[in-house]
């Protein structure tokens, strides 16, 4: 990508739109322009049910006056359409009059973190569909108990352009490629499910670099294994979480609670805790938007700030929160590249990117051996947190009993529940086998954004397991 590449909207037009946005006396105006093309294909019951194409294109205009933000969006990218949206946003932010001041923009900033080899729109749809058929065959071949396979392919190529009245002008091109496979196995005790996914911020080369048949077999094996699963225990037990499967634990246990918008309203258990020991000294937690090819990787955030690596917890001590433009401005500090939004139709807010815990000192096999009785979680599902109390849940979709230091019988699905600060303190063993996990979508205030997570194998000395067995 060169700096001379055409922008979605000419800088001169952006300057005039930003000026119009500030015309009622606002301190800040911003234009976010997006042009996204996507393809998806779904296979179910052995058939490619449909291939679908999508195009989303438009601009969101934000105007800030005092503590009030006005926002409007439009799918009309002409100067007339943008000016009308700017007026609507300005009127929304302000009921009073004000002066006009002109906006001059700096040179365009680009900060690519990924290199794309095979752009999704240059790959034949036939090749995309073939991926699904390979996944279907591989999963079905695992066991005769496999009764259903569904698989989804998705890719998107999104160009964004952000300009604001502070002179910021930034552009990025974001590519995402995703594959999902769900498998149902049927046995004497009913049906069980398996799920795997693969997602990266690169193009079709992701399928050269990963073994998708193995991914499909793993989902199928998960479903087959659970056919003989027993009900999960109930009550509190030590829990060992396999590397690369439990990043969602940190996402829920503390990630959301470290977002500055939640902190600023006093709605987080981590408010006023900077400089304090909030986790086991084993834990160093990072949020890093620059992590090449990972699902939460972005060149710039959706406010035009280059992505960066932020240390949130260092050796158990809370070092910093995550920041967007508004919250950073209030504190008179730099933003941290965490201002994100679902699309041009949404306001940006503080969001995670790739959130992970660095390696600890322990041998992962020894972590299991040192656990007399407990639960080994090999795959986690989604989660949910109440940031104010710190209580959070997350689902286990592949788990086993640990008996006398050995992984034994498979367990049926269930939720685990814990309190964030308590769980962070209760991490008593941390492995040296770091791995990133599956692609995720993080939901907050009605908006979903792609995020990544990761961790080494670790043990929480006590978590409540939501099973039904005594």
């Amino acid at each position: 990508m060169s700096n001379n590449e055409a922008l979605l909207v000419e800088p001169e037009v952006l300057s005039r739109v930003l000026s119009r946005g500030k015309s009622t006396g606002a301190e800040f105006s911003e234009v976010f322009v997006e042009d996204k093309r996507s393809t998806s294909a779904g296979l179910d019951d052995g058939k490619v049910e449909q291939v679908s194409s999508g195009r989303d294109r438009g601009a969101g205009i934000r105007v800030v006056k005092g503590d009030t933000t006005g926002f409007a969006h439009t799918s009309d990218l002409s100067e007339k359409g943008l000016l009308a949206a700017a007026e609507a946003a300005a009127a929304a932010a302000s009921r009073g009059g004000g002066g006009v001041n002109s906006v001059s923009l700096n040179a365009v900033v680009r900060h690519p973190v990924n290199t794309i080899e095979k752009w999704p729109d240059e790959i034949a749809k036939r090749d995309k569909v073939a991926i699904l058929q390979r996944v279907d065959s591989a999963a079905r071949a695992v066991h005769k108990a496999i009764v259903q396979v569904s698989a989804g392919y998705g890719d998107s190529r999104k160009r964004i352009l952000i300009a604001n009245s502070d002179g910021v002008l930034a552009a990025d091109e974001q590519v995402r490629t995703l594959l999902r496979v769900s498998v149902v196995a049927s046995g004497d005790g009913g049906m069980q499910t398996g799920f795997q996914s693969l997602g990266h911020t690169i193009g079709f080369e992701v399928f050269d670099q990963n073994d998708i048949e193995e991914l499909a077999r793993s989902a199928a094996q998960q479903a087959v294994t659970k056919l003989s699963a027993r009900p999960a225990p109930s009550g509190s037990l030590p829990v060992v979480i396999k590397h690369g499967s439990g990043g969602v634990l940190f996402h829920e246990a503390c990630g959301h609670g470290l977002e500055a918008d939640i902190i600023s309203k006093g709605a987080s258990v981590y408010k006023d805790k900077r400089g304090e020991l909030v986790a086991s000294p084993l834990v160093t937690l990072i949020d890093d938007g620059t992590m090449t090819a990972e699902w939460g990787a972005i060149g710039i955030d959706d406010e035009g700030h280059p992505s960066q690596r932020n240390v949130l917890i260092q050796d158990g001590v809370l070092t910093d929160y995550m920041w967007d433009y508004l919250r950073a401005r209030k504190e008179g500090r730099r933003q941290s590249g965490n201002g994100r939004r679902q699309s041009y139709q949404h306001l940006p807010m503080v969001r995670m990117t790739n959130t992970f815990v660095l390696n600890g000192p322990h041998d992962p096999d020894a972590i299991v051996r040192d656990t007399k009785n407990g639960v080994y979680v090999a795959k986690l599902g989604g989660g949910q947190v109440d940031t104010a109390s710190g209580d959070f849940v997350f689902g286990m979709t592949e788990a086993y009993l640990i008996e006398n230091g050995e992984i034994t019988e498979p367990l049926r699905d269930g939720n685990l529940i814990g309190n964030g600060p308590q769980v962070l303190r209760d991490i008593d063993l941390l492995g040296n086998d770091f791995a990133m996990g599956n692609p995720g979508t993080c939901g907050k205030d009605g908006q979903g954004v792609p995020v990544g997570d990761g961790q080494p194998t670790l043990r929480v000395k006590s978590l409540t397991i939501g099973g039904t067995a005594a």
Partner: protein
Amino acid sequence: MKVEVPELQAIADRIVAQAKPGEQVEAYVGRGGETSVRVYEGEMEHFVSAQSDGVGIRVIKDGRTGTAYAGTLDESAIAEVLAEARDNVQFGTRDEFAGLAMPDGVEPVPQKFWDDELANFPTESKVDLTKDLERRALAADSRVRSESANYDDGWGETAFATTTGIRTSGRANSCYVSVVTLADDGDETQTGFGFSVGDSPKDFDLDKAARDAADRATRLLGATKPSTKRTTIVLDPYVTSQFVSVLSSAFNGENVSKGRSIFADRLGEQVAVPFFTLVDDPTNKLAYTATDIDGEGLAARRNVLIKDGVLQMFVHSSYSARRMKTVSTGNATRGGFAGSPGVGCLAMQVTPGAKSQAELIASISDGVLIQEVSGLHSGVNPISGDFSTGASGMTIVNGAVGAPIREFTIGSTLQRMLQDIVAIGNDVDWLPMRAAGLSLVIADVTISGS
């Protein structure tokens, strides 16, 4: 009464008229707008005013399906969408059941979806109303502070046309308010929320929304973690609504035909206790998700899913119906112009019993009142039936509500829970969800705590 939208209908008709011989074409055209006001500590935090439009096109030829959409109604973009959908057709697998819905002669039940008073409600009043709601929540309890108060409204117009002869258009608007509060006690902070919905702002019950938000935040202060045991639980209407919504996928005819439902092969069997009846009735205007047509343009209708505990039927779109050699039940779902039709229940309701929640609780010597659940998406597996969610609520001791408890889970299976229902309340609450709420008493559920 039904309001037609001729301008959008003309666009949909023009698209469908371009169908080539041997092609089925469906056009879904939509446009809409929203206002969103957020107030924090007496000041407006944000004001969003936005409009959007778009078109989705589905083309079926020789049993193969292709779709495409664009977030604009530009003539040139529409042509591109049709060309893309056509191009996509060749990559689908031939499916003898693929096809659009055919008109089935069922007349839609007329309902009112548009309110002029809401459409003309002034912006200043939206802001004042939101500030008022925040003040009321703060006044409801001195331990409460604000996280946000919100007013949201939206309007939408859609038009739908197919080469099979379905043509329909309509207009709808709606509004709601919500307030989120925080309550502190020493180091402990709890969250609460309250909301109110209506056809227009005059329907709002601001006091109830404010009181709910204050109650929910303060009632959990000082809550402890219960010990693990099997016990009887009472689901608050707000929780029952979520529980019933989870069951929706088990009635989904497409899931049944693909072997993904716990109810497959169980038609006519006793799947729940004999006093449990469940209907899906989007023609009931009281339901938040009431609608006159489904996602394929057929009339929405009342369907009895479980009667006296016996499984009566599955719900279908035209596709799932063809797969199972039956007819559509008017249960195609659709997520706007960008989505393709799926199958689902539209507006579920458990037939109410005779007792109030207080009367139900009075007959329980030892149990738990479940007021909130979390992690339904991560801990409930509608295919295996495994059910495990995070929960908070109150103990029930000797027929009365006792102390607050939190950070525990409730676990069972969907199959067992339907057979373990002990009593059903009369306290129907038409919540803004896919299922109405009421109190539901379920025995023999595992509470997992310390």
